[in-house]
């Protein structure tokens, strides 16, 4: 539509959020502003999606030099990988403004800022720019958690903040190391992501830099064993913050791995991939088992989300195109299903004032629409065929078996754990006899129902007819592996053969 659409998607929410913070706007105005801005962003993103031509390269590029002596630039662009995370954010965030009762002004302002910052991190094509947005992303979460969180918010806030900052500062060192290496090898200063793939990195420092990136992303995802901040933060955060954290921010961690680690550190990545894959699988199992034991449904969802992030990360570590495509598909599927589940959990908590599974029961008879929506989102989350979760998980496990049979088998069987705790929780909360707390449970209002409807439909459409989505992803992932031909040569050969194969798999 127009030239600077990405900049607008990024800065419109940020500026609106800042404006809300500095002006004495009332709560209602804040909520309304947030809604309008996020809907405007949605419209722009949909337009972007329609205009995206799936060449596999960056599109909608904006380039303005910034620090010329070091080659840092304001450089934006989207490809098939980033587009879907951007879209997930734009589609999901407007829901938050519809659903809950009006909160403080700062709540909406922070939500807007985090939306813009996440879009920025996903669209940035310059490493320094990425880092800047990556850090800005954390600040609104810090304030939302600290100001509007639950009773044990302070330790949770400190944990997530220190954890993430420690990780991201190490990443900064790694980013600078890449820039300096590029300067040393090509005698030109740049921090552009696409140029880094040409780097020839080896030696001990490269391994350190690799882990600098990996740890930062592993903390954000969160990957086992860096997940310890997650249960506290997800549980204590207000619903919108949990939603943002699980639905989109965690995905940006995966995105970072795909964008930085895989193309740049091809050698180190190939060396450590099996280790990382196992850490993904262990994370899946560990968090899944932990989820079974939870009594608090928000905490259970937190562990479930972490468990599913493990499989998404696994898809990236398998180093083949199917798994990677599956990961990106699963990113969207997970964002829609788990994100919505967190919102439903927020509604449950809002209306019953409890988060304990034991206290609830029989909601299905009181609120059939709510139960139906919940069931669909939940089944998508556990990967039932016919929902969006199935396609992604299927492709990842297929890729995993190709990569390493043991990992694939473990990942496939672990999915059962997810079914286990989810169905058990669903049965307790929605069926069985009503308890005093859930007796007066009101069903979704018309506005709420209509708000969730598009996402629920999306879950089903993505499960039944994934081709239009996959066709936008595959060129980028194919290109991704074409770049790495030297190292993963045997996979690059199969890349072209995979394209028809992929379409068969969906049928």
């Amino acid at each position, binding site marked *: 539509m127009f030239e600077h659409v990405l900049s607008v998607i990024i800065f419109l929410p940020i500026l609106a959020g800042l404006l809300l913070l500095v002006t004495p706007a009332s709560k209602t105005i804040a909520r309304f502003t947030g809604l309008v801005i996020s809907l405007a962003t949605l419209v722009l993103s949909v337009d972007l999606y329609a205009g995206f031509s799936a060449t596999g390269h960056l599109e909608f590029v904006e380039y303005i030099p910034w620090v010329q*002596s070091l080659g840092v630039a304001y450089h934006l662009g989207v490809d098939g990988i980033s587009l879907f995370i951007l879209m997930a954010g734009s589609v999901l965030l407007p829901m938050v403004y519809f659903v809950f009762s009006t909160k403080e002004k700062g709540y909406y302002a922070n939500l807007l800022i985090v939306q813009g910052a996440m879009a920025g991190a996903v669209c940035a094509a310059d490493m320094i720019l990425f880092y*800047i947005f990556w850090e800005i992303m954390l600040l609104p979460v810090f304030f939302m958690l*600290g100001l509007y969180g639950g009773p044990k918010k302070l330790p949770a806030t400190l944990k997530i903040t220190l954890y993430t900052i420690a990780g991201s500062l190490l990443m900064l060192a790694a980013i600078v190391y890449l820039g*300096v290496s590029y300067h040393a090898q090509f005698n030109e200063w740049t921090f552009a992501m696409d140029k880094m793939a040409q780097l020839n990195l080896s030696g001990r420092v490269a391994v350190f830099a690799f882990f600098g990136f990996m740890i930062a992303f592993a903390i954000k995802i969160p990957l086992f064993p860096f997940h310890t901040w997650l249960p506290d933060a997800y549980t204590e955060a207000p619903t919108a913050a949990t939603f943002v954290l699980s639905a989109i921010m965690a995905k940006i961690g995966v995105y970072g791995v795909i964008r930085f680690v895989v193309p740049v550190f091809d050698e180190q990545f190939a060396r450590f991939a099996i280790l990382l894959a196992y850490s993904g699988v262990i994370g899946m199992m560990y968090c899944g088992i932990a989820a079974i034991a939870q009594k608090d449904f928000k905490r259970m969802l937190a562990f479930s989300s972490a468990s599913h992030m493990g499989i998404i990360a696994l898809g990236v570590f398998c180093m083949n195109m199917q798994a990677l495509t599956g990961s990106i598909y699963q990113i969207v599927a997970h964002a829609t299903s788990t994100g919505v589940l967190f919102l439903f959990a927020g509604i449950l908590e809002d209306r019953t004032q409890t988060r304990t599974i034991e206290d609830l029961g029989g909601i299905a008879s009181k609120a059939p629409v709510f139960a139906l929506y919940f069931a669909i989102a939940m089944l998508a989350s556990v990967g039932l065929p016919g929902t969006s979760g199935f396609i992604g998980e299927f492709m990842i496990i297929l890729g995993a078996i190709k990569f390493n049979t043991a990992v694939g088998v473990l990942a496939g069987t672990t999915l059962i754990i997810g079914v286990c705790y989810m169905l058990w929780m669903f049965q307790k909360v929605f069926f069985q006899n009503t308890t005093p707390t859930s007796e007066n449970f009101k069903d979704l209002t018309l506005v709420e129902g209509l708000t969730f409807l598009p996402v629920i439909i999306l879950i089903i459409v993505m499960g039944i007819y994934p081709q239009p989505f996959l066709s936008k992803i595959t060129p980028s992932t194919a290109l991704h592996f074409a770049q790495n031909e030297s190292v993963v040569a045997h996979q690059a050969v199969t890349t072209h053969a995979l394209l028809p194969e992929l379409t068969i798999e969906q049928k």
Partner: protein
Amino acid sequence: MTNDLMLLLPLIIVGAGAILLMLSSAYEKLTNEIAAYGSAVIFALAFLVQLSACITDEAALFSGAFNGILVVSNFSKAASLIILACGLFTALSSQTYFRQNNFCTPEYYSLTVFAATGMLLLTMAHELISVFIALEIMSLAIYILVGYDRKNVISTEAVLKYLMLGAFAGAFFTMGSALIYGATASTKFATIGKYIVAHGFLQTPALIGGAFFILVAFLFKAAAFPFHAWVIDVYDGASVPVTGYMATGLKTAIFAVFANFLILDETLQSGWINYLFYISVFTMFVGNLIAIGQQSLKRMLAASGIVHTGYLLIALVAVSTKDFTGGVIAFYLAAYAAGTLGIFCALSYLGGTGEKRQTFDDFKGLAKARPYSAAAISIFLLSMAGIPPTAGFMGKFYVITSAINAGQVVLAVLGIISSVISMWYYLRLIINMYFYEAEEEFNEPAPSSLAPICTFILVICVFAISLYPVAI
């Protein structure tokens, strides 16, 4: 000739202005307020002149007029700009501060201008004796400023400590100069550099000793390990604006002359680099350890000043003698100055009468009562912690880049670990301000609007410096 005069004009304005202010303080008609505005005008004038000199981008060696003892380079211009801006904001926030505290006399402002004179001279001096004179002009004024609140015991203790130790540092410096003069028969940096090139650095014991003594003096003034112990008490004892001034202007001047001295010659620099490496590591970590334990905000900021000295030392380790521009150091100093001055500006009107709000706990719930001030302080703290998109982040980014580029990967990583640790005490204040209920009401009106205005100008500076990295 007129060009040279233009380049020296800021120094002349500040020097003459200081004398003028001092003389006119004898008249009763010169109230504190007028003195404050007067000093602000002097700083502003000098700043503008310096800025216009920066645009023309000229350097001068003054080989005719001063026999090469003063050198104006782009680095010295940048440092002078920072110093003059620090002076300006200090003068303005002092005006507000002294509405609530009543130990002010007009001489206070003339002393701040005197200190600035010494600092400007330091940035330009390329000769040991003039460095010493400049150092003493600056230090004497600062000694008095630290002890300005004569009736306050802590302040008196601070000035005594600072004076004694500072005198030692001065003595070390003269001793070092004497040794160097004995070895090289000159006190001019350029001639010393030539001597080292001709005869080698390690071959002349007197030169090594002399350089060592001078290094000690600089490290002391810059508050680097192991000469950092005085900082906490002195910063704590001085009044808020003076502490801000010391933490920013003085540090800028010292680092300017430090860099100028260190790049004399490659062998001199490489001879010290190993030591500076350890000194900067220890400075960062010791500073962090001290800062973590503090309850008082001022003491925490003093300790964080030590940590920032450590970062600046990283930049010093990484400078190359061949194409030295000082851009990284100047940029970091500017970023650091904006953040630190901002906090001290805010404290000078939030502190209350007699600086009654001192500890972290005293600022609990500030965000509810004073949302804008709390937001400003948070931005400064985030800048000091190096979180984007603030100036502190860009400063840290340049320092790390220059360190890795110079092959000092370990130093860069240690610097980063240190800034992770420092997050703890910066966040602590933000958490106190935002996530607690107010224990007291911050309802007294700001005594004057100057300090709040300065604070908000500095907030803009923090962002502007990061978005327009012209210095590099």
